[in-house]
């Protein structure tokens, strides 16, 4: 059944600027404005800005908020300092079956005026409804407030070597300095282009940058200001197409592709997203057992000789034996060749191993490659 699509507060800008609008996880989003390759390269060379308002933004507060999330997330929440952002999985054991519901960022905001703790959880658009339903089902009787703020707010990612400079140019010197001084996976609040924003040094492109969360009414003024300040420096508005090729080059998993309900986080290289030490989040026993008994396929990078890419679901072969399956693949604009991520048998997972991707009726040679494919020069920052 077709349902009406959700729209971000920036939808009119996207349409007016030639955005090719597609249904993504129930949202009407731009996949590209002109060229995915140009948007991708602008982000690597200068900056790209992305409307990521489709991501779910959940807020958690109250005297028992930390303790509650500590019991539910795979990363430790107890002891989290103000301004800290952590990458975590959201697991569920509803019905006795441990599953990964989503991957997410948990952060602690500044305390509420009454002194109680406030946290924010950013989840994938495709999983927002079920994460909200799951967390709601686990709410204690008192001490925790939980709200879905997705539609009341907007989220703008500004990524690339000039991102911090561009955003800083729209702030007071004090706010600009605080943003420039933020470590990775740290957050602060600031006034950007006259609007209150939660600013975190995070992203999904492999570049330096920030993600801004603002009230829905502030989305257009902030977006316009970032665009006006950045365009003369080479910033481009980017659609979800470039977001996907950028994260692929950066070797970042995407839920529904590399990461799935039945995934073993260790096999995907997400060991650090699961802190087991004496913890009891849903499925902790199951994930502890998987860590102690590694089995099954593991996530690797594949670099192809050709520009022609294997796509999700394509087989990975070695001779006549199928050794894996592609989870994401594309021409990689920064590298000039096709790359893919795949889940492969452990005996072919070593870098340098030669395999083939089955692309329609042809076989394309590829070599197992360490992830990420692309890593920015951090000395430049």
């Amino acid at each position, binding site marked *: 059944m077709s349902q009406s699509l959700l729209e971000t507060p920036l939808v009119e800008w996207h349409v007016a600027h030639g955005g090719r609008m597609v249904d993504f996880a129930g949202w009407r989003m731009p*996949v590209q404005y002109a060229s995915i*390759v140009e948007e991708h390269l602008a982000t690597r060379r200068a900056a790209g800005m992305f409307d990521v308002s489709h991501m779910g933004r959940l807020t958690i507060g109250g005297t028992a908020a930390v303790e509650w999330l500590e019991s539910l997330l795979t990363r430790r929440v107890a002891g989290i300092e103000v301004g800290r952002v952590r990458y975590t999985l959201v697991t569920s054991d509803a019905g006795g079956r441990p599953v990964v519901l989503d991957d997410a960022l948990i952060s602690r905001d500044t305390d509420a005026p009454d002194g109680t703790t406030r946290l924010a959880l950013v989840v994938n658009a495709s999983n927002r409804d079920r994460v909200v339903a799951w967390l709601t089902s686990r709410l204690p009787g008192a001490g925790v407030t939980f709200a879905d703020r997705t539609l009341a707010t907007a989220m703008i990612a500004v990524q690339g070597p000039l991102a911090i400079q561009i955003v800083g140019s729209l702030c007071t010197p004090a706010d600009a300095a605080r943003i420039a001084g933020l470590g990775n996976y740290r957050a602060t609040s600031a006034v950007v282009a006259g609007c209150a924003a939660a600013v975190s040094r995070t992203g999904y492109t492999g570049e330096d940058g920030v993600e801004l969360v603002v009230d829905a009414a502030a989305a257009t003024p902030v977006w316009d200001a970032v665009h006006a300040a950045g365009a003369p420096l080479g910033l481009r508005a980017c659609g979800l*197409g470039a977001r996907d090729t950028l994260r692929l080059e950066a070797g970042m998993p995407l839920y529904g592709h590399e990461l799935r309900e039945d995934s073993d986080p260790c096999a995907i290289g997400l060991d650090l997203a699961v802190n087991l030490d004496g913890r009891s989040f849903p499925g902790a026993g199951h994930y502890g057992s998987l860590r102690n008994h590694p089995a099954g396929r593991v996530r690797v990078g594949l670099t192809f000789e050709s520009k022609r890419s294997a796509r999700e679901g394509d087989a990975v072969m070695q001779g006549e034996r199928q050794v894996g399956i592609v989870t994401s693949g594309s*021409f990689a604009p920064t590298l000039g060749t096709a790359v893919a991520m795949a889940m492969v048998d452990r005996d072919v997972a070593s870098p340098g191993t030669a395999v083939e991707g089955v692309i329609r009726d042809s076989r394309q040679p590829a070599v197992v490659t360490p992830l990420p494919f692309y890593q920015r020069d951090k000395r430049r920052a």
Partner: protein
Amino acid sequence: MAADLKFAKTHEWVRPESGGVLTVGISSYAVEALTDLVFMQLPAVGRKVKAGESFGEIESVKAVSDLYAPISGEIVEVNAALPGKLETLGKDPYGEGWVVRIKADNPTELDGLLDRAAYESLVGSQPH
């Protein structure tokens, strides 16, 4: 866009040459809609194709698309330089960007294709 072209609904164009040979290419609308072309696969010369059958592929960053034969016949020539110079498809889609030449089994099949006005009206009603 030259007036003597015919179009398939699948966005290939056809230009009749002499001796029942047809030059086939990809419409500028389709090239623009695909964007970011990275790969093209052409058929072997001598291959027989039926109207509506896939004779090749064109791949962009986002997706792979089939190229469909607008008319039945034999592939008598391919633009072998094109896969190495895909930008030609955007610069000159109705000239240097031609893709294959087909010797038609039955040139009257051409009558079933769209003329320029009908094709423009078709793509004008399609969102990119």
